[in-house]
């Protein structure tokens, strides 16, 4: 069955921030220039071609867009100013929305109203919750003059809220990942993957997740470092508050070198540094990958930045015993934190944190599977 040329896809993609879809005349410069490409993954050109021809299925069953870390070199040297890097970025947004079964992701990506609305709504709910359950707060200080952070709301409650949020997010992410896996493993041009391989290749996940190794192959090691700081800081913080909240958010203020604080500080630093770098980059448009900023890009950065900022303030206020400020900021902190996690992680930009390593994993699986099949065929032929 031939696949039909589809002209509607590009219109769809424009909503996801596609600049121009047809500038590319397929000289293959981008693909050859990119240090991450190999025979099995000839992006960006191939993805661009698929996009141009509107071959949706092929697009969905492919992982290529996730393998691109957007160093921007292809866009700088493209003879037709077709901006391959940005196209790949757009495709990632598009794929994210495809993987998401709730359809919210598409809404958030394609309409500012929806995204902002959702954020405000969640933020409002948090504030409301506090206002409803704890209209009055009696400021208490610890013996050593710190603010009793948990007297605003019992840690238990927070933890419960925390867990529920965690479960929802996890649920969404996992279900979406399943969909992604399904599309890739059984979509157009899929290869049958023997079970053993899943385990053999599993280490890829952890490795690429923790190191972003492929990114470091792109021209600027600098960008990789920024990105890694940001990402590691985020992850640590994420785990601390999601999993180890009781251990992290303690009444007593430990010594500076206490791992709780060190970890906290590291994460904060990583986030702050990475964010600042990105913000400056995007404002200055210093590099091709920063030239075009979709709403979702900005929103995410801003919210993360606010979260970090409020977090830091809360931290210092409570150390220096300023109860009310601490409590109000704590509420504010949660009011940005919650929507950020609830929206960005499963539906928007931050989901690539999950998709990318899995994409690499799946890509390798496929490669391994192909090799495997070849081998078996050969052995069959020989016998």
């Amino acid at each position, binding site marked *: 069955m031939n696949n039909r040329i589809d002209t509607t896809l590009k219109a769809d993609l424009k909503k996801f921030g596609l600049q121009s879809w047809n500038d590319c005349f397929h000289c293959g410069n981008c693909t*050859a220039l990119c240090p991450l490409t190999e025979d099995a993954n*000839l992006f960006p050109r191939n993805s661009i071609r698929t996009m141009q021809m509107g071959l949706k299925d092929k697009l969905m069953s492919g992982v290529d867009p996730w393998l691109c870390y957007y160093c921007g070199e292809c866009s700088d040297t493209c003879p037709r100013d077709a901006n391959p890097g940005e196209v790949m970025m757009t495709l990632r947004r598009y794929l994210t929305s495809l993987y998401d079964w709730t359809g919210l992701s598409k809404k958030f990506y394609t309409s500012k109203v929806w995204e902002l609305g959702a954020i405000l709504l969640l933020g409002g709910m948090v504030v409301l919750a506090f206002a409803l359950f704890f209209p009055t707060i009696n400021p208490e200080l610890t013996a050593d003059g710190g603010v009793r952070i948990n007297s605003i709301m019992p840690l238990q409650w927070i933890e419960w809220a925390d867990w529920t949020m965690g479960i929802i997010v996890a649920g969404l992410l996992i279900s979406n990942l399943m969909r992604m896996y399904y599309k890739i493993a059984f979509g157009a041009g899929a290869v049958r993957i023997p079970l053993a391989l899943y385990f053999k290749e599993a280490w890829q996940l952890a490795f690429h997740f923790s190191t972003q190794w492929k990114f470091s192959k792109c021209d600027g090691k600098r960008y990789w470092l920024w990105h890694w700081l940001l990402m590691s800081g985020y992850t640590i913080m994420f785990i601390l508050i999601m999993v180890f909240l009781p251990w992290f958010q303690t009444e007593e203020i430990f010594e500076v070198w206490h791992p709780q604080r060190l970890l906290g500080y590291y994460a904060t630093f990583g986030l702050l540094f990475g964010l600042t770098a990105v913000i400056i980059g995007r404002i200055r448009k210093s590099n091709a990958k920063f030239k075009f900023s979709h709403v979702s890009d900005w929103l995410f950065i801003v919210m993360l930045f606010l979260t970090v900022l409020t977090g830091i303030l809360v931290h210092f206020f409570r150390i220096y015993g300023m109860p009310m400020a601490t409590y109000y900021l704590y509420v504010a902190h949660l009011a940005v934190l919650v929507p950020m996690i609830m929206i960005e992680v499963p539906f928007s930009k931050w989901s690539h944190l999950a998709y990318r390593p899995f994409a690499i994993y799946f890509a390798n699986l496929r490669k391994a599977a192909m090799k495997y099949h070849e081998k078996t065929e050969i052995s069959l032929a020989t016998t």
Partner: protein
Amino acid sequence: MGEIKPTGVFLAFNLSDLNGIDPMELGEYVKKIPGIRKVWISGEELDPDPRKILTEINEHKLKRIILAGYEPGMYKSAFSYAMNEAGLDIRDVGLASFSEYAVKTIDEAKAVLYCTIFGIPYPEARKNGSAIVLSETLVIGAGIAGIQAALEIADSGNKVYLVERTGTIGGHMAMFDKTFPTLDCAACILTPKMVDVGQHPNIELITLGEVSELKGSTGNFEVTINKKARYVDENACIGCGVCSEKCPQNTYSEFDASTTLRKAIYIPFPQAVPNKYLIDAENCRFIQEEKCGVCQKVCPAECIDFNDQDKDIHIKVGNIVVATGFKTFDPGKIKEFGYGKFPNVLTSLEFERLINAAGPTGGNIRYRTEDKKGNWVFKPKGSEPERIALIHCIGSRDRNYNEYCSRVCCMYSLKLAHLVKEKLPESEVYEYYIDMRAFGKGYEEFYNRIKEEGVHIIRGRTARIAQEDGHLTLRTEDILNHRLIEQEVDMVVLAVGLEPRSDAEKLADLLGIKREASGWFLETTTGCDQCSTLDQGIHLAGVCQGPKDIPDSVAQGSAAASKVLQNIIKGKVDTDISGLHDIELRAKELSSIMEDES
């Protein structure tokens, strides 16, 4: 004058081609012309969708539509479609194309538009009497196009001044080895023509000369040519070459595209015309610091004069043919290819010299090496490269450099590939292209022949070249076979594109020729005319008007000559009025005359 049908004018501009012309102002101007019912400006009043146009036509009861702009034709079919729907005669869709008349100012734009509205060809309206034409002609640039033009005119018994900025005529063609697709050697077919020029009684050859001033008017130009000092008496020099033998100063040879060294006193190449030596002052030790002077001592004909000065030559001519040619793109600009960093990454022109029988290695393909003095040169001895890659579209079809297609690179690359196969049958040759533009007579056949010769032809633009231990590695996507190639080769030839000469702008201003955004001289495409500029006495020939291969340049050289001959034989040439008001009056007058006739 006759009544103008109710007309709508559509000003088809997009921001890219405004050229400093303000559509609003133009719109205001047009509105005042009687009979103009409606004026739209593209994008703002109307985006040309046939349905919208149709309603507009009906609403304003229009019978006729004029589209104006640089490429109004882009929208024409939309309007003719609407006109047809409205049951009107689509011949009433008129175009006022600014590109057609090389319009650059608002007044010209107005004039063109005005003429179109009155149904008068703009050139007709510009015409204003005629001027006597002097029979002498100036040809600027003695490449193949210039030579051709000069010979045509001189053969018909008219005086020609042929000005060449370098020391010899022949231009780029003289540097080539073979010519595609026939593979006959450039020198053998060109040198006889050069000799003709040298010996022609009607051609006065001025080498080392550059036009420095233009006075007078159409048909009677007063040109000043600045002739650089040669330091060698052209009439006395017998071309024995003793001076050059003895000269101690080495420098890169321009004629050999810097693939080899020449002396400070030199002759560009053995068959140079005039076949006389010259001193390049920058490198002459005597002229620089009063030392040496050996050549003067050894010259048997005593024709060397260090006190020679630049001098101005004043001539009067009736026609000028501009054939200043091109320069090749400097691939050093593209950092990914490491040209200038890796010795065996060559430009096609360098390679052209390398494989030339009269080149640095006598036509043997050798590695480029560094000599004792640190110059990069080719030595006849030494080993041969076994794998050679050619990369197309260097600096062409690339918005970072030149967007246009240089037209000749595909074919000359195929030619080079063939020559390599001929000289090194065992070698592997790789061609990396984007679109194979084998368009000319016998070109496609040649392309097929090369394919059969076992040259690897790969669709894909090489992205970067890396050098490890002498080998060069090219990273390319083999698009048609869906794979990446990391090809290791010994030598890379960059098919560099053509660019306007660096002094093109100066000359253009001097002669009042207009230029494209890309820098090539702009012809008035009136009647698909490739040779003429707005001045009836100044003509274009060869690559200076846009990339061309040899036969096209030759043809254009002759074509320019034919216009010159027409002017000379007629004895007079049309002169133009430029003032907007005069043109308006003229157009009105002409249209009324036409009324009377019909």
